[in-house]
C-alpha cells in the first residue's frame, strides 16, 4: 500500500499537544468543535490520531509561504 502521508503534495499532519491546543483555542476564542473537521479514516492522518484530537496541518500556500490550519478529528 502507498503511504499517502509521504507524498510530496500531502502537507504535514501532526497531532497537537494538549497545551498547544489550549493556546490555539484561546487565541481564537472557540471550542474545539468550532474547528474545521477531518475524518478519522483520512489517509493523511498520523496513525496515533484519535477521535477528538486536534491535528495541526502546515501546508504551502499560494499567498503566504506556509499556512497553519487546525482540524478536529471526527469519525
Amino acid at each position: 500500500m502507498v503511504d499517502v502521508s509521504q507524498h510530496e503534495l500531502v502537507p504535514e499532519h501532526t497531532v497537537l499537544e494538549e497545551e498547544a491546543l489550549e493556546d490555539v483555542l484561546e487565541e481564537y476564542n472557540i471550542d474545539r468543535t468550532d474547528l474545521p473537521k477531518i475524518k478519522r479514516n483520512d489517509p493523511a492522518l498520523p496513525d496515533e490520531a484519535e477521535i477528538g484530537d486536534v491535528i495541526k496541518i502546515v501546508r504551502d500556500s499560494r499567498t503566504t509561504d506556509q499556512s497553519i490550519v487546525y482540524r478536529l478529528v471526527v469519525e
Partner: protein
Amino acid sequence: MQDTTPKDIGSLSFGLMEPEEYREMSATKIITADTYDDDGFPIDMGLMDPRLGVIDPGLECKTCGKHSGSCNGHFGHIELAAPVIHVGFTKLIRRLLRGTCRECSKLLLTEDERDEFRDQLDESRKLSRDLNDVTKAAIRQARKKDRCPFCGEIQYDIDHEKPTTYYEVQQVLTSEYSQSIAGAMQGDEEEGVERTTPDELAEQTEIELTRVNEILSGSFRPRESQRKAIEKALDIDLTEEDTNKLMPSDIRDWFENIPDEDIEVLGINPDRSRPEWMILTVLPVPPVTARPSITLDNGQRSEDDLTHKLVDIIRINQRFMENREAGAPQLIIEDLWELLQYHVTTFMDNEISGTPPARHRSGRPLKTLSQRLKGKEGRFRGSLSGKRVNFSARTVISPDPTLSLNEVGVPDRVAKEMTQTMNVTERNVEDARRFVSNGPEGHPGANYVRRPDGRRLKVTEKNCEQLAEKVEAGWEVNRHLIDGDIVIFNRQPSLHRMSIMAHEVVVMPYKTFRLNTVVCPPYNADFDGDEMNMHALQNEEARAEARVLMRVQEQMLSPRFGENIIGAIQDHISGMYLLTHDNPRFNETQALDLLRATRIDELPEPSGIDDEGTPFWTGYDVFSELLPDDLDLEFTGTIGDEVVIEDGQLLQGTIAEDEVGEFGGEIVDTITKVYGNTRARIFVNEVSTLAMRAIMHFGFSIGIDDETIPGEAQSRIDETIADANDRVEELIEAYENNELESLPGRTIDETLEMKIMQTLSRARDNAGNIADEHFQDDNPAVVMANSGARGSMLNLTQMAGAVGQQAVRGERINRGYEDRTLSHYEPNDLSAEAHGFVENSYTSGLTPREFFFHAMGGREGLVDTAVRTSKSGYLQRRLINALSELETQYDGTVRDTSDTIVQFEFGEDGTSPVKVSSDEDNDIDVEHIADRVLDSEFESAEERQEFLGSKPRPTNLSEHADDRLAEGTEVTSDD
C-alpha cells in the same frame, strides 16, 4: 409607523402547540358554518365573527378595540368532534408508532441503549450535525425489538397508508389452517416429500394426538406455540396478515403515555412539545385578516379559499356530532371521521399526493395554508425575499463622454418623480422654499411637504406658492433630485459588487440614463438597447454609506485580481496610441485643444522650436500634463517597448491598453494605489477626454479599402494556399498508399487529420503574414490591433488573407451526409475543400460551400456561449448561496454563522487584493512600497516632516469638493 420601535428578536423556538393554548388564545369558539346573516352582519360565533378582527375600514375590533389596519386580527377555534391527524407530522407519527410499545408506550430500547443515543444526540448537537441521523438510528434499533423490554408485549409492524391512515399489521392464524396442515401432511411424491401421519406429527410437535386430530378437523385452533411447532415440522406458513386500523383517538392515547425521557432521545423537547399534540382535538381558526372576503361589484360577497374550507370543516364536524349523539352505526361514524380528516388535511395542504385536491365550485383547486407559503410566488420567495421598492427608475442607457465616471445623467422626468427628503433648518429654509415654490412640475421642485405635526401635504401647481411661504425650519420637503445627489445605479445580472455602484446625479433632458463609457466594463454594459436601474436613497445614513463605499471611484480596483477594472477603452486607447506612438508635434492651438476638456489650462514650456521658428509640444508632453508630478514608472508596454515615466514626464514608450486600459492598465493601477482613488478618477476622466480630442485631431475611420491588398500580394496568397492544397493532396495520397507513419499514441486516421490541420493552419498564417506585409503601420485596423483597442491580427488575417479552416468540436467538418460533408463532393473525399477549409478572405468573399461551412463553425460558437453562460450562471448561483453566510471577523478568521472556523486567516495571508499591489514576481510588492517610503523619508528635512505628519488625501465626498481639494485650495468654513 413612526411610533413603533423595532424590537430585537432574542430567540425563536419551534415546537408543537398544546390544545389548551389554542383555546386560550382564541377570541371565540366557532360553532356555525354561516358567515353573514340576511342583513349582511357577521353572525356571532360564525366564521366572520367580529371578535376575529376587522377588515372593513371604519369598524372597531371587538377584541382589541383597534381599527382595521392596526388590528392584526385574532384567532378563533373549532372544537373537533373527534381527534384528527395533523398532515404535517405524518412521518413523525409513524416513527413514534414504530419505536414505542403498543401497550406501555415506552421507547423500545433498554435504558443503556437509550442513554447511549441521548449522548450521541448531545454530541451531534455540539458538532452541529444532522440530528435526524441519530434519531433515525434510534428508531431503527427500536424496531428490531419483537417484544417490549419493559412490559414484554409483542410488537407489531405499523403500516402507513398515505396520507393519514395507520394500520397495525399482525400475523394471525389463517382460517384455512386445517386444510393447509392436511395438505402438507399428504406429502408430494414428485418433490420427494414424504407423507406425514398424525402420529408422526404429534411426536414431532410434542402435541397430544387427540389435539392433533382436533386441529386437523378444524374444531381446535392451535395456540401460537403449537402453530409454530407445526409450521416447523411441516415447513409451511399458517399465518395471514391481519390489519387493524388505528384511529386517531387510539394514537392519541398511545402517545399520551410516552414518557418524557423517551421523547428526548427522538429529538423532541418534552418541555415544549408532547407527541399527542400532533393529533388535533382543537383546530385554530385564522383571523379574518388572513382570509379577507371581497365584495364584488354586484354587492355579493366572495369568500377566501380558507373560509370555504373552514365552512366544510364545521359542517362535517356538526354532522359528526349529531350522528354520534343519535347513536348512528359505527360504519357511518367512521365515514364521517374520515371525511373530517380529509377536510382538515386539505385545509392545511391541498397538494398531497394520493388525495384528490379540494376544489372550488368552478373546479379550481383551493389555495390553502401550505399553498400560500410554497413556491416562487409563495410568502417566502415571493413576498419576503422578493421585495419591490419605491424610488426606483429604469430606462435605456446611452453614452456621454462629457460626464465624469462618477456621474450619471438622469432624465429630468425621472428627477421630478424621485425625491429626496430634506429636513428644513434655518440654513436651508431659503432653498426649501424655492423648491416648494417651483411646484411638482418645475425642476428643482418638490412633490410633498410634511408639517411638524406630521401631516403630509401634496405640492400642486395651484398651492405651491402659498405652501412655499409657510415652509419653516422643522418641516420636511420631498424635493426633486438635483445635480450632486447620490443615487445607486445597477445593471443586471448583478454578478459582482461592481454591478451596483453609486453615482452623482446630473439632471439632463431627454429620456435615457447617460453614463461615461469608461464605466461600461464593470457593468458589462453597451448601448445596443441595454437598460439600467436607478435607486434614490432615502436617508442620510444610506447616502453617506453610498458616497464613501459605493461610488464608482471607490470601486476602481477589482477585488477579483486587485487591479483596476476601470480605464480607457476602445477609441480612448486608439487615441492615446495615436497621440504617443510616433510622438507627434502640435502647435499651441492644437495642444490647447487637446487639453481643453481637462483641468490643464496653461501649457508647459514648449518641447522645442521647429524649423519655422514656431514652438511645438510633443504628444509625450501633452500626455505628461495629466500625470502626477512625482510619478516614476518603468515597465514593458503594450507593443513591447519600454515605457519610462520619470517625475511625471513620459520619456519613452507608447501609451495604449497595458498602460491606461481597463483590467490592469499599469499607469491607472499605480495612480490608484499610490495617489488614491480620487486622483485616479481624475486621471481616467482626463485620459478619456484627451484621447477623444486626440483621435478627433488625427481622424480615425475604417473601411473596406483598409483591408484590401494589392493584386501582387493576392497572387502570393493564392500561391501559398495552392501550395498547401498540394501538400494536403500529398498527405492523402501517402495515406491511401499506407505510407503514412502514425504519430505516437494516434491512429493513422488521426495522424492524417492532425497533419492536414497543421498544414492548413500554417497556410492561413502564411497568408496572414503576406497580408500583414502590405499593411502600413497607420492602417486603422492595425492601429486598433496593436494598441489593444479592438480586434486582433487574426481578424485582419481573416479579412485580408484567408478565413481558414472551419471547425466543429475542434475537428475539421466531418458531418452532413454519409461519407461526405455535402452532396457537392465525392464520398470519402479527404481534401481540404471538402472539409471546410475556407481559402477566401472576408473581403474577397466566400463561395456558397465555404459560406455553409462557415455558418456551421459559427453556429457552434453561438451554441457554446449560450450553454456556457447558463451553466456558469447556475454554478455561480450555487457557489454564492453556499458561501454567502461566510464572514471575515475582526480577528481575521473567516467563520460561518454558527462561528465555525472556515479559514484561520482570510485568504491565508489576511490581506485584501484591493489593498495590496502585486505582480507576477511578487505577491506583495514590498520593494516598491519600501522604495517609496524611503524616498519620502530621506530627501530633505521638510519632506521628512511631511512624511511624519500625515498628508491628507483629498476627500471622497463629492465631485465638486474634491476638485477643489485636489488643487490644494481650501474650503472655507460655513460659519
